[in-house]
């Protein structure tokens, strides 16, 4: 499976496509809500696209725990097949 670098760059593409955030700004320490100004509905869209891209399930209750980009990268790395 993809390493964390690949997951981060794949996630950055999705975040740019959904929320219009430049890929370079999507780094592991950033908070989706506080730093990247992404709302809860965009988070759902990002989760749905990440599910398709990485072959993981990200239910809404798990999604709520993914505060930072790094949290999301770790979750995908731990749960993708």
């Amino acid at each position, binding site marked *: 499976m993809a390493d964390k670098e690949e997951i981060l760059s794949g996630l950055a593409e999705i975040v740019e496509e959904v929320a219009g955030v430049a890929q370079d700004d999507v780094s592991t320490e950033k908070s989706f809500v506080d730093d990247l100004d992404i*709302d*809860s*509905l965009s988070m*759902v*869209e990002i*989760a*749905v696209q990440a599910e398709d891209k990485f072959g993981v399930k990200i239910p*809404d209750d798990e999604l709520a725990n993914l505060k930072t980009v790094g949290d999301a990268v770790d979750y995908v790395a731990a749960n993708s097949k």
Partner: protein
Amino acid sequence: MTGDRPALQLRQGPAATRILGVGSTQPDRVVTNDDLSEVMDTNDQWIRERVGIIERRFADKDELLVDMAVTAGAKALADAGTDPSEVDTVIVPNCTMPAPIPNAAGQVADRIGIKAAGAFDLNAACAGFCYGLGVASDLIRAGSAGKVLVIGAEKLTDVVDPQDRSTAIIFADGAGAALVGPSEQPGIGPVAWGSAGDLVDMIYMREHRYLFQEGQAVFRWATTQIAPIAMRAVELAGIQLSDVDVLIPHQANLRIVEAIAKRLRAKGAREDLVVADDIRYSGNTSSASIPIALDHMRAAGTVKSGDVVLLVGFGAGLSYAGQVIVCP
């Protein structure tokens, strides 16, 4: 075959149906986002970004669901140039009558001047209009009805907590109608419908009083599961997604509408597909949203006679239904 038992006679209607006329109505009272921010913790920018609504219409206390249904239904008859005496069946999809008894359809038919109509309400929540249109078309094709008036009508302000910013900013009141009748060329395609009763808790009436929805879960369901239903309706109609000129999804939330359109474009719908955004000035009117949008878009010229229009409704139940129509 069974000896002396008489064989029952059956009826057979025309092979095809179409929408003969459309009409809608909304209350006079316009409620802006700024109006709402005076009574709850919200603001214009937040509402526009989350749901895409700029303003909506709220009915006054004495303007009832049936009143709006009568107005919309009569307008659809006028649009079709059809006398009420030519109509024999009235279906009123809705989920917000003040009480389950009596239904809306009987009194609405009578007030429009349709005497002794076959009349019933249909509750498939926000999918109600597409369910009703499918039933109307098949009643005619089976020979059970001649012309059917389908009126989606809702007074959601009766079931929304006016202080609840998760619902009060979205839902609104109104009615939209279509008159369905026989046609030489098919103008209403087969309905693609279904339900997901296992997800019933995503939208329900809290303590039988106020509408509640799990916004995020509904958003995920609608943005992922509804485009395939729309594609199924296109397939059943025997056409291609690229043949579709106009998409009118239930006006639930502009971001859901846009997400459905995006998925359909990724699957072959045209870039110049016209997508209904009537929610911006109407809010979410549940079973009324699709016919209101169709009526407004015809009036504005964004949908023209002969256009191939894809309708898809979805909501509580969970229920969903879609079909392809040719715009009258």
